[in-house]
């Protein structure tokens, strides 16, 4: 999956993320309502777990141990650092309103993305605004976890 940005009137790819689908998994997109709804619920749970005091235990379950994202600056954010920042209040999601989550499932891999408006404080600065996010998920030990995230602000 690719995150693109329009620059100087032209769409360019800013971030990419992908995963191999197991050979014994169905290559075709799974439209099963149960699994797609599971992914969408996981996305909603993740947003809710980030709000206010942040449910660190829940986030710990949702994010894979090797979860990572690349910030706009190019800085790598790991699970350890994101949980630490939510726990300390360095990163604080005050409130948010998410639009519909679009999810696709391919065997053991899923992608989800959507738009969100956030009121967010980071390092004491208000970084509120609209953003688009995309998550890459994998099913591990029978449970879906988020392995990669990318996002960009909407102007």
């Amino acid at each position, binding site marked *: *999956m*690719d*995150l*693109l*940005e*329009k*620059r100087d009137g*032209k*769409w*360019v*790819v*800013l*971030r*990419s*993320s*992908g*995963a*191999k*689908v197991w050979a014994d998994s169905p*290559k*075709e*997109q799974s439209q099963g309502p149960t699994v797609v709804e599971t992914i969408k619920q996981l996305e909603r749970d993740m*947003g*809710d777990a980030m709000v206010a005091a942040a449910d660190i235990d829940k986030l710990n379950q949702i994010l894979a141990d*090797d979860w*990572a*994202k*690349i910030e706009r600056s*190019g800085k*790598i954010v790991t699970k350890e650092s994101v949980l630490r920042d939510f726990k300390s209040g360095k990163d604080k999601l005050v*409130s*948010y*309103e*998410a*639009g519909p989550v*679009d999810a*696709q499932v*391919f065997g053991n891999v899923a*992608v989800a*993305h*959507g*738009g*969100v*408006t956030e*009121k967010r404080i980071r390092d004491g600065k208000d970084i509120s605004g*609209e*953003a*688009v996010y*995309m998550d890459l998920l994998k099913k591990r030990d029978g449970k879906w976890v988020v392995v*990669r995230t990318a996002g*960009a*602000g*909407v*102007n």
Partner: protein
Amino acid sequence: MDKGMKAPAPSNDPTAIAAVKQVSWDMGDAMVAGDVQKLDQIHADDWAQIASSGEVDTKEELFRDFKSFHDKLEWFALGPIDVQVFGNVAVAHGSVSESRSRDGKW
């Protein structure tokens, strides 16, 4: 959630959606053809991805691999591409079947 807020709504502009899909097709074609100039136009200078190994790939590294044939996409077949456009940002995702060699290995 904060009901006082409004989530950004995706655009229904078919031109924008088609333009984003075209980027995905062009990228695959350019990789097969080894068209580095086209890939340069498609990828932002600050493009990056985190590989499954956890290593970060930059645009510079991506190009080095394609130029040296360290990474070679032989063929690909894209499934349907799902695109959502929100103002100046878009997300495209779908499945791809591909034959790729890396370091001479298939």
